[in-house]
Every structure is written in C-alpha cells, then in structure tokens.
C-alpha cells in the first residue's frame, strides 16, 4: 500500500516537473525580452530585466570581473551572510550534540608510507591553492566557498593519513568567530560610512587588478577562512566521535 502510493506520488511529481520544464523551455529569450515593470522603490531601472542589469553594470557598480562573485558578495551579500550563518549554526550544532560522545582513544592503525609522506607534500599546496582561489574570487571562477573547502580537504587528507592529527578546537572556533565578526562588521561599516548595510564604501580601484573591487576580496577572505575552519571542525568532530 505504502509502496504503491509512493510510486503514484513519484510519477505525478515527475510528470509535473517535466511539464513545467517543457513550458519553461518554450520561452528562451530573456536577453531579448524586456519586462515593463515598476520597482516599488527605484523606478530608474525599469525596462531592463535583472540578469541584463547584472551583465551590463556589474563592472561599473562593483569593480568585479566575475559577475557571480559580484552577486554573491555585493548584490546579494545578505544571502551570503545568512549562508555562512547556516554553516556556522550547523558546525555549532555538531559540536554541541557530540559534546559528551568524544573519545580520545588512539589505537587506530597508521596509514601507509605513501599516503603519509604524500599528504605532507600536498598539504601546503592545498592550503596555497585554497588561499589563491578565495583571494582571486573577483577575477577568476571560485571564491570563498570552494577555497575554504579546498583548505578543509587538505586537513581531511592529514586526518586520513595521521590518525593522531588533531587541530585545536578552541583555536578553530576563535578563527571562525573572528571571520564571522569581520563579515558583519564590514556590513555595519557600510551602514555607518555609506547608506546601506553591506554597501561598498571602499575605492573600486583599477578593474581587473588584484587589489580592486572594494570590499569583495575582504569579504571573500573572511568567508574563505570561515568556511575552511568550520568544515574542518565539522569533519574533526565527526572523526573524533565515539560510537
């Protein structure tokens, strides 16, 4: 009974999705199509769809070459603040729930020589690559999230090859707090020095250079550190937990 009902629901779901996609794909011309709408606050941007605005004006408004970065950090920076908060909440929850389940028993066997020596060599490169990815977020693909996760995977590799490898939990949490505070403070400075929360109040600089685009690299560096330390602490917590 349960199985039949599930099959029926799944089929209905599949068909409705397919139908919706068919309807969507029969109208593929958003770059040509101009909507005439009025914006409740600001009527100057009428007659231009949102993606068009991003593609046309990102360079002038934010100084970033990578439009996705500009959207993530500037136009919709509030979402990103919420997103790092979700990750932070999850990391906090993981630590909170596993608090009395830890074991520090160390009778695990060592990994083999190649993995151990290899990961020693790879770790600095992983950290460097991660840092490169999040520092160049406004110029090349990537940014704070992949950069942070590359750093976390470097530490994951160390944890795999050295069972005794252990990061100081307190230092990690201080690092993630500082990164989060930096993000919110950059936003609040926007409220103080400019008009809006998270508004860019620094000079945009020469577009295309590393030091440009105002607050975007700063926020991405904070996000990179935050994501890296949070993912690393989540993995460490899961590794240390006793069954």
């Amino acid at each position, binding site marked *: 009974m349960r199985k039949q009902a599930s099959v029926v629901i799944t089929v209905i779901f599949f068909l409705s999705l397919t139908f919706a996609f068919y309807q969507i794909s029969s109208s593929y011309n958003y770059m040509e199509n101009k909507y005439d709408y009025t914006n409740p606050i600001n009527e100057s941007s009428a007659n231009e769809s949102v993606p068009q605005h991003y593609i046309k004006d990102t360079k002038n408004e934010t100084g970033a070459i990578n439009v*996705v970065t500009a959207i993530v950090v500037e136009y919709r920076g509030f979402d990103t603040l919420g997103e790092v908060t979700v990750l932070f909440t999850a990391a906090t929850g993981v630590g909170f729930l596993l608090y009395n389940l830890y074991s520090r028993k160390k009778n695990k066997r060592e990994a083999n020589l190649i993995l151990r020596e290899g990961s020693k060599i790879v770790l600095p490169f992983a950290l460097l690559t991660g840092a490169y990815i999040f520092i160049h977020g406004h110029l090349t*693909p990537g940014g704070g999230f992949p950069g942070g*996760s590359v750093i976390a995977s470097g530490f994951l590799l160390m944890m795999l090859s050295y069972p005794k490898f252990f990061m100081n939990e307190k230092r990690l949490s201080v690092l993630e707090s500082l990164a989060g505070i930096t993000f919110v403070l950059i936003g609040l400075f926007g409220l103080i020095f400019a008009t809006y929360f998270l508004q860019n109040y620094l000079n945009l600089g020469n577009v295309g250079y590393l030091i440009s685009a105002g607050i975007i690299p700063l926020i991405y560096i904070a996000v990179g550190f935050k994501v890296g330390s949070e993912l690393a602490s989540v993995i460490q917590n899961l590794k240390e937990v006793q*069954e």
Partner: protein
Amino acid sequence: MIEFTIIAWVMSFLAIASALYAIKTKDLLSAAISMGIASLVVSIMFLLLQAPDVAITEASIGAGLTMAVFIYAIGKTERWEE
C-alpha cells in the same frame, strides 16, 4: 555543438544510473560513494552549462566533503541496510 549534446546525455545517464544504484543497493558505503559520483557527474554538467564557479564548489563540497562526512558517519554506525 553536437559533441556537447552527446557528452551531456552520457553524463545524464551516468548521474541517473549512479543515483538509482545509490537508492537500490543494500551496502550503505557504496550508496554514499555512488551518490558522490552522481554529484561529481553533475558538476561536469555544470561546466557544460557554463557555470565554472558552481562546478568547482560542487566538486569540492558536494562531492568531496559530503561524501567524506557520510563515510565517517557510516564508519561510526553500521554499513549494511537490513
């Protein structure tokens, strides 16, 4: 553009097959790994759809770290579904 279409369909079938295997198999470890493979394949589709930022993020977070988290959790609990 025909080669992109072919790659996309191949990736599509790979993703669907690994997702089906992840649902079907009784071995949770291989289910987690094939979920990671589906994620990785989808990140290649992101590249085809001109989304390099998302492809990098999906490959490192969606496929890599999620799978690692799953594997640690399976190591702490049990490997076989009843």
